[in-house]
């Protein structure tokens, strides 16, 4: 009995208990009296959480400054929607197809050229890529609906209910997060960490920046494209507005406010931004100002995002309990205290 108990002990760490509780809540939410609007927003949150998490995979974990992820999302959404609408295929076939088309296009059109470049050039080319897509959508307006958007996209089920949409999003979210965990904790993740910390050393160990980068791009494109496809078939309508600067900024702030380079951060960020955005719809342009303010304040004062704040709170709690066990793993917090490596010191270049 006691051996079994000891073996099981690691599983009852507070963090797993919390995770289990949150999971149970998410699974039971529709039965806990959540109304249709809340379920709608929650479903959107789950989709955006995946997009933000995989954006964070390229930028926060792999150190590739991609700014084109909304482009991946749009390719997945449009491919799946157009296939389903024009060819009459079921969304269950077009969604994976959309994700695969996204993966192929992104790796060839963006991944291959981008990964030969460095730093800011990557940011520029990926941004230009996403920014050229509205024109492409307009050029193919017979299928895409041009600037007005695409309406009447076949939904996942006939007469899709909000609670059903929510569960589909939840399943997708769980699959995506588990995959992300495997990628980050597995061999690819280690390779990225090595590349980010010391490229020379990683290469000496046989890590190939180009190959690993391409793999990250492919994984990120697949799940982001899939998220786009799911989004299209959950809502039944899409428009080039998803490529607009506001949507771009909102998703980028999700993982940034949540905590770049953390697993949980982008999810928390997605929840806050999506719910905040929906409940502030009445506020109109004020949302824009608040978003800008949130980004500026976060960068200046909490570079590690919400996760840094939580880490700080947990450390404070641990200290008051007299045990100094908690460890800071948010990049901003831990590294700000380290050696001066900024642009104003000799080591900066």
């Amino acid at each position, binding site marked *: 009995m006691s051996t079994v108990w000891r073996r099981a002990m690691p599983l009852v760490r507070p963090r797993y208990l919390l995770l289990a509780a949150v999971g149970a809540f998410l699974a039971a939410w529709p039965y806990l009296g959540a109304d249709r609007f809340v379920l709608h927003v929650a479903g959107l949150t789950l989709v955006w959480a995946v997009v933000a998490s995989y954006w964070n995979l390229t930028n926060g974990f792999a150190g590739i400054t991609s700014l084109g992820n909304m482009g991946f999302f749009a390719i997945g959404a449009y491919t799946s929607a157009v296939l389903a609408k024009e060819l009459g295929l079921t969304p269950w076939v077009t969604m994976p197809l959309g994700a695969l088309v996204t993966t192929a296009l992104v790796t060839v059109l963006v991944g291959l050229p981008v990964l030969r470049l460095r730093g800011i050039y990557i940011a520029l080319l990926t941004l230009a890529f996403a920014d050229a897509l509205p024109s492409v959508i307009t050029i193919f307006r017979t299928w895409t609906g041009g600037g007005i958007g695409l309406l009447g996209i076949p939904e996942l089920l006939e007469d899709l209910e909000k609670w059903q949409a929510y569960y589909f999003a939840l399943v997708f979210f769980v699959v995506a997060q588990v995959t992300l965990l495997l990628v980050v904790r597995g061999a690819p993740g280690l390779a990225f960490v090595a590349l980010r910390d010391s490229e020379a050393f990683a290469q000496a160990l046989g890590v190939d920046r180009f190959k690993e980068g391409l793999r990250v791009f492919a994984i990120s494109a697949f799940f982001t494209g899939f998220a786009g496809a799911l989004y299209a078939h959950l809502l039944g309508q899409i428009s080039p507005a998803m490529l607009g600067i506001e949507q771009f900024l909102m998703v980028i702030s999700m993982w940034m406010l949540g905590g770049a380079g953390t697993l949980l951060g982008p999810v928390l960020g997605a929840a806050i931004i999506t719910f905040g955005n929906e409940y502030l719809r009445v506020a109109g342009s004020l949302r824009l100002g608040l978003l800008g303010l949130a980004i500026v304040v976060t960068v200046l004062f909490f570079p590690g995002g919400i996760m840094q704040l939580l880490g700080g709170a947990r450390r404070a709690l641990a200290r008051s309990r007299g045990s100094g066990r908690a460890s800071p793993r948010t990049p901003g917090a831990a590294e700000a205290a*380290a*050696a*001066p490596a900024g642009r104003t*010191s*000799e*080591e900066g270049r």
Partner: protein
Amino acid sequence: MLRVRDVTSSYGDIQVLRGVSLDLGDGEIVALLGPNGHGKSTLLKAVAGVHPATGGSIELNGEEIRTEPPHRIVERGVAYIPEERYLFPDMTVFENLRLGAYTRRARERFAENLAFVYEIFPRLRERRDQACRSLSGGESRMVAIARGLMSGARVLLVDEPSIGLAPALKKDVYEAIRNINRQAGISVLLVEQEIEYALRLAERAYLLKKGTILFERPVSELDVAHVKEAYF
């Protein structure tokens, strides 16, 4: 002139200097010897302010300069000649020298200092309109030292001036440092791998090992074998 006491410094978690003390007198040439990676360059950088000294004190003519930013230290008359040279590659030799005289005091004495520099390194006068990108290793080294002198420095911190040069050029560079010291009375703190050269030039030598000073002697009491022994 320069008084260093118990200086500590680190890169990230690795402490490189564990309390170093040394003195550089007026018009003196002092060699700082020791194995690679034991903190010689870090000490020069700490004095120049380009890498922070976390503790101890660095005094110049009795004034504390440890926490001053690099440009203030240059203004006070200390020039650091980095091993990496850090020339401005797309500028000509003359433009590099002109930027060497960036501080107000140095600009006022520009013509005078330029004449002195050309006297020490006549070759730079010939190369004055050539882009630094196209200079040979020896010439770049000369520009680096000359650019440091243009600031009107009274103290020169020279890091490995002969590294990567052919023997004949090494001798030229050392001759130049000797002339700088003799003709202008500039104090020189010299970090050098080649013990023979260093000991021929310097009056005193410190041996820095594992981030602390192992010993300090007048050069007359040192011989090469003795120093080399201490390296291991």
